[in-house]
């Protein structure tokens, strides 16, 4: 699946997007964030405070406990500051 990063999460990870292949044990958005943290220091830094990480699956806001199976695109970002 494709994962997109925005704002300071994007800056800390060091890339705007990538394709990932998480194992079946990664079921929810919060499982995915915990799994990503293990990929390297930059990820651990980006996701150090999971409480501020927001997510969208296929361009719709979702809660951390939402299952990711079937989603083609997941976006991870900090709280929004538009408007």
């Amino acid at each position, binding site marked *: 699946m494709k994962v997109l990063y925005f704002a300071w999460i994007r800056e800390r990870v060091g890339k705007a997007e990538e394709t990932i292949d998480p194992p079946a044990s990664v079921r929810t958005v919060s499982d995915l964030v915990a799994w990503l943290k293990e990929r390297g220091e930059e990820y651990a830094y980006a996701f150090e405070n999971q409480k501020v990480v927001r997510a969208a699956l296929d361009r719709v806001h979702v809660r951390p406990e939402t299952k990711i199976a079937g989603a083609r695109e997941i*976006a991870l970002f900090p*709280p929004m500051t538009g*408007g």
Partner: protein
Amino acid sequence: MKVEIVDRPFDAATETAALSRGRTDIGAVVAFSGICRDSEDGAAIQSLTLEHYPGMAEAEIARHVEEAEARWPLFGVRVVHRVGRILPGETIVFVACASKHRQAAFEAAEFLMDYLKTRAPFWKKVEAANSANWVEAKDKDDDAAARWTKSKRDAAE
């Protein structure tokens, strides 16, 4: 409805006029402009840069416009949101609602702004003389958006 994301300055007055052009059934137009200021907490702002999630930003704004149109009797809605580098004095976001009587237009415009502040996937970075920092989301914006989910009297003038 018209929802547009633009990467260069636009004119709020032109957008407002377009909403009611040629129509004589509209009795009320409420237009809001959110403008880039030149300072925050005493520190000078040189510019804002707005990042967004293309595809989701338009869809999310449109979803909220549809909700506004379902909740209030509106004759038209226009939303324009800038992205990219914005200078003090430039309009960041524009929301205009048209209706027969004023209550629907006022309430729908406020509802849309409260949601744009919290649910639309944009992120602001403030550039000053020696720094560039991401703006933090404010609790009071979340509180403002939350009040629309309590039962609130819809316009019925």
